[in-house]
């Protein structure tokens, strides 16, 4: 062996030594990291220290002992049925320790009483909060790592996961989710999107079958261009239609006429009589009729805006509609008033003259009358109507419409990389996507680079049909000329008309522009972005986002996790009362069981609440219960037999036999005098009126209506059972009421009830001598016996 060999071996020896030491060092490092440096260890040590402090503070030896030796280890919750393991508690150790409510994260105790209803050993953490339960490092556990699609939900967004078990629209402790689900129904999202079991019972927009006879073409053009200009609070979203598309769509819609209306003589009525009818009918309850000083609308938002209605509708249509609204719109909330022909004419006259913008009228007259749509325009309009999914909200003819939008059944669990964010500068997460999409649907798109030949592009654009142009402007944020061109090219490319280098694919030598125009017109809207802008408020968009995120493919593994569904009772009896209800649309304002709106009182237990006679009188001539409130139930001029039937029905059917049991059993011990003292000492007058004195917060106890001779007092109106129940616990009857719960004893409640019942209007009693207080101890079923 020569020297060079020796040298080489020496070198190799060193290499062997160094690399061996290196390996050993790395292995030791791995072992060290594994056993000492994990961040959760530090958290648990901190927790243990705090436990010690607390124990020292409590000073008992046993506790001190128990808190010492807190084992430092990975902690986890096994959820067999969910097939999950949640190790969140490895860092969030204090989650169930009420002493740690004020300690900073990650040791904080869980807020609220959620854990009481959702025990951690049954639900774990990630079922509600998402994130990666198996991970033991913060970033990974919170799901803020690549390839984890379900990151931690923060703030209100955590409500989205309630939907795994809670299927009712209203979810307790999840206001945003409940609101969002409500909005989905109100806005009619299910008209265009498939969303699992969510379906629209009633289409969100009106039927359009006689739209041509109803509205003026000029109004329709304006409405289609931007509905929010005319009716900011309306449900109709902004589609951003360009003039060509508006023309086509309006031409198409104007072809839907109703001969019966068109052939009516021009209606003439009396303005002043009409004004009276307007006031009696309390139109303002449902319709916006004016703007206040701040330009805020005054009036109800149930029906459409009456401002400028004179410029909008055809008076012939209006008369026909007022006579019988339900023949046009079977699902409208508008009641059928008993207007005579003349009354309808008068009211129509009043409405058409009162809410007309003459300046606008003049301005419109200056404009040329829009031409009758050509057959081509009508055809385009028809296609647009179908493409835009108008049929999702509006009935037109009796065609079934298939959803035009994407299927949203599992949108909440769609992988983020499958969502189109385009160039939008929003974080790539599902909630951000949904929120942005809802707030401004067009922003989630790629900005396309304009290909070179500008003239070429312009030549194409100008020759496109409105339908094709429409789909162009849709995909673009502001529809600038450049963007439109770019869109044309990209769409052509997507449709396979142009290849990657924007050349016609088959290389045929002919005018590219002419050929492209032809092709694009043929395919009209290639794949337009149809989602309109609902101009949602921020909180509405957020609530909707949460409701959409709840549409996930993750559901409870077994039935016993699911929250019991509250059966949705639809009040729709087939009897006479039901017929009357459908006629007068009581449920547009009142609620019965789960049906209807809560604009006026809930009628579910009205029979147990009010006196039958009083009710009949009230139906004949309703009045406001509160001095400050001028809006009341409309005067329907019910025929006598109808009001009697309604009063009978309500006092028979809408009763709760359990209500006010205490009063029935104890009324003999009730002393109105003691009640009076109580009434004064409890300060009831601060809110309620008695003989003209008292506050205006609650309803008046002695209503006096000038034009109503038998203004009724509380004793005339309410039943003892109800008053008793109300005094015991107002919120049990009406959860949102501001009436304070005075925590009265049984005896106090009895006394106060007796006192209030003694407040009867002598005039009213005289007026109806047949009326008598029911005998003591009488059961309520007999109590409501109709006298007639």
């Amino acid at each position, binding site marked *: 062996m020569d020297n060079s*060999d020796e040298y080489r071996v020496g070198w190799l020896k060193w*290499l062997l030594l160094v*690399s061996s030491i290196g390996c050993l060092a790395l292995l030791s490092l791995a072992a060290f990291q594994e056993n000492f440096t994990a961040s959760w260890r530090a958290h648990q040590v901190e927790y243990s220290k705090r436990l010690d402090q607390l124990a020292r503070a409590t000073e008992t030896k046993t506790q001190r002992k128990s808190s010492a030796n807190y084992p430092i280890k990975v902690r986890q919750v096994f959820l067999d049925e969910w097939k999950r393991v949640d190790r969140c508690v490895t860092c969030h150790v204090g989650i169930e320790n009420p002493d740690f409510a004020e300690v900073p994260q990650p040791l904080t105790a869980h807020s609220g009483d959620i854990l009481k209803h959702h025990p951690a050993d049954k639900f774990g953490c990630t079922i509600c909060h998402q994130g990666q339960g198996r*991970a033991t490092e913060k970033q*990974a556990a919170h799901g803020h790592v690549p*390839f984890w*699609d379900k990151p931690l939900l923060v703030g209100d967004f955590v409500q989205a996961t309630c939907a795994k078990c809670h299927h009712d629209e209203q979810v307790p402790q999840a206001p945003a989710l409940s609101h969002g689900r409500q909005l989905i129904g109100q806005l009619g999202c299910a008209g265009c999107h498939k969303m699992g079991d969510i379906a629209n019972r009633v289409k969100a927009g009106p039927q359009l079958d006689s739209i041509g006879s109803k509205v003026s073409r000029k109004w329709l053009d304006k409405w289609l261009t931007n509905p929010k200009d005319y009716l900011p609070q309306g449900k109709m979203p902004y589609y951003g239609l360009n003039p060509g598309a508006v023309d086509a769509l309006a031409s198409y819609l104007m072809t839907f006429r109703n001969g019966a209306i068109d052939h009516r003589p021009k209606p003439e009525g009396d303005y002043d009589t009409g004004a009276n009818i307007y006031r009696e009918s309390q139109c303002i309850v449902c319709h916006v009729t004016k703007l206040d000083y701040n330009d805020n609308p005054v009036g109800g938002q149930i029906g459409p805006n009456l401002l400028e209605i004179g410029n909008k509708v055809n008076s012939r249509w209006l008369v026909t509609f007022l006579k019988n609204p339900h023949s046009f719109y079977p699902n409208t909330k508008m009641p059928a008033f008993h207007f005579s022909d003349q009354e309808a004419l008068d009211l129509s006259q009043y409405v058409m003259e009162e809410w007309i913008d003459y300046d606008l009228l003049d301005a419109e007259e200056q404009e040329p009358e829009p031409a009758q749509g050509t057959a081509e325009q009508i055809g385009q309009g028809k296609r647009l109507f179908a493409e835009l999914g108008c049929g999702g909200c509006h009935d037109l003819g009796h065609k079934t419409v298939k959803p035009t939008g994407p299927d949203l059944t599992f949108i909440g669990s769609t*992988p983020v990389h499958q969502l189109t964010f385009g160039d939008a500068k929003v974080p790539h997460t599902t909630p951000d996507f949904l929120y942005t999409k809802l707030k401004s649907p067009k922003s989630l798109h790629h900005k396309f680079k304009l290909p070179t030949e500008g003239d070429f592009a312009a030549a194409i654009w100008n020759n496109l049909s409105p339908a094709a142009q429409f789909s162009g402007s849709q995909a673009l944020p502001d529809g600038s000329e450049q963007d439109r061109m770019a869109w044309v090219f990209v769409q052509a490319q997507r449709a396979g008309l142009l290849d990657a280098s924007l050349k016609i694919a088959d290389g045929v030598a002919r005018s590219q522009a002419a050929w492209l125009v032809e092709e694009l017109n043929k395919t009209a809207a290639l794949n337009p972005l149809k989602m309109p802008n609902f101009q949602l408020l921020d909180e509405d968009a957020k609530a909707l986002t949460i409701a959409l995120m709840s549409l996930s493919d993750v559901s409870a593994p077994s039935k016993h996790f699911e929250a019991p569904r509250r059966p949705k009772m639809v009040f729709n009896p087939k009897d006479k009362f039901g017929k009357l209800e459908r006629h007068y649309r009581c449920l547009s304002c009142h609620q019965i069981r789960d049906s209807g709106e809560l604009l006026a009182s809930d009628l579910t237990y009205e029979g147990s609440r009010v006196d039958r006679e009083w009710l009949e009188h009230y139906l004949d001539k309703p009045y406001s219960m509160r001095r400050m409130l001028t809006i009341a139930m409309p005067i329907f001029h019910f025929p006598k037999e109808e009001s009697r039937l309604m009063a009978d029905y309500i006092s028979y059917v809408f009763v709760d036999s359990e209500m006010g049991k205490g009063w029935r059993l104890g009324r003999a011990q009730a002393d109105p005098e003691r009640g009076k003292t109580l009434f004064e000492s409890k300060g009831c007058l601060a809110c309620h009126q008695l003989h003209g004195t008292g506050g205006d917060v609650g309803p008046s106890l002695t209503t006096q209506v000038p034009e109503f001779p038998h203004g009724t007092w509380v004793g005339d109106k309410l039943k003892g059972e109800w008053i008793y129940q109300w005094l015991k616990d107002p919120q049990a009857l009406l959860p949102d009421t501001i009436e304070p719960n005075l925590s009265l004893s049984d005896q106090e409640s009895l006394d106060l009830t007796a006192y209030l019942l003694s407040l009867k209007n002598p005039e009213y009693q005289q007026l109806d001598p047949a009326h008598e207080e029911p005998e003591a101890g009488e059961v309520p079923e007999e109590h409501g016996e109709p006298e007639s």
Partner: protein
Amino acid sequence: MGTESSKMARQVESDRQDASPGALRLLWCNLLVTPRSFRDSLIRHGRPTSERAASQAVFTNFFLHILPTRIHRDSLRIRTTLGLGVISLVLFFLLSLTGVALMIYYKPSTDLAYDSMKEIQYVVPTGRFMRNIHRWAAHGMVLCVILHMARAFYTAAYKSPRQFNWVVGMILFVLTLALSFTGYLLPWDQLAYWAVTIGSEIAQSPREITDALGITAWFDIGAYQKQLLLGANHVGQEALIRFYVLHVIVLPFVMCVFLAIHFWRIRKDGGLTRPAGAEACSESEKFRNGPPALAPAKTYGLMAVVRGRTPAVDRSMANTMATYPNALYAIGALCMVTFFVMLCLGHSFNAPLTEHANPLVPENPAKAPWYFLGLQELVSYSAFMGGVGIPGIVVVGLMLVPYLDREQEEVGVWFGGSRGRRVSLASALFAIVVVVGILTFTINYGWLRDWYPNIPQIVITFVNPGTVMLVVFSLWSFFITQKTNSTRMGALAIFTCFLLAFAILTYFATVHRGPNWGFYWSKSDWPVH
């Protein structure tokens, strides 16, 4: 040390004679020397101080006796082998080690596999470290095996008498790819699921031929292959368990058998290849230094079964070195450096784990593991040719190389000297021009299907960019053979072309292929949908 222990033994012997011959005392003495006598029985010799002892140390050791007792100086030079074979072996060893560790926690079930990966990542002590090492070592092994093959080829190590070992090497290469590919599915993530789905489509690709012949209804070999691979029509539990069994039992076992044959053949074929010139030189030195008296006498007994004129160990003794310690240090150092690099990688880079496999959410593009991406590019032209035809032809072609090129000149020299170097360089340039040219052409102008939409698929199967490359490279090789009048040069030419094409296609498919296998300059140009 040996002498020391014998001194000790003598001491004990004399003690026995001196003292009363009590058996108990004898027992006590024996107990005292037990550690030493155990060591002696284990190692059987002391520290090898003489060359003979060093030879014996190697020869008598079960683990070392695969090595010759003396080894040629050139064989230990780093530039001879670049250590690639040893590194591959070390990586295989490391993979087995970490693989067994991972097996303890891995559960081959579609329900549990992904979760068990997460457990390994987050709660199994050093689980992530083990998995990282396993993943990087797997990639490293594929790379080293490819490079090792290239080294063997360029130094003409496939020539007689090593032809068969080259074939064994090719088998080991295929096994390595198979091991890596079967392991790919096991994490049961999106990456795995869709890569294997593509793999199974390739297995089904012979249907392209049977369809063209119209015999698919009777003889659907493609579907049969896919069924055999997956055990079902889709990648699912059956496929997972198949891949698992192949990955942890079948393939490693077959691999071990062929590795044993490979090493056995290296020894029996006369060690590592080296230039004939080196031997000639040593031949003369042999006489200067006298006969190889130091070689263990026993080896001669084996001569009858070893091919060649004289046993390899005997030749050119002057240029050989004792295996112990020279080769052992070299191998040991290489081994530890490899370990160290892998530990570093395992420490620094986490092995990817994408989302849970979801048959409803296809990855776009779904890409195979990197070493198959070149093939995937070819598959995009024709599934059968890219997935079965061309790789089959290439593997079989490479196996045939030693039988077609039997020239014995310039063995053991990189590229076989300056002429070979020139040919290799020219071939490399030629391959770059051809591959880049064909890719550019295909991207810009499309292929037959774009020009004649109704063309029968069978035409495209046989005439596509992949087959065109194959034919052009073959022609080039024939041309070189003709021109240089040397089969070795022809072999160099075609191998270089294949290697370059593999590299370029792999790069191209990795970087420039995006959704729907479209061409993109970079990933940032990918459309979102």
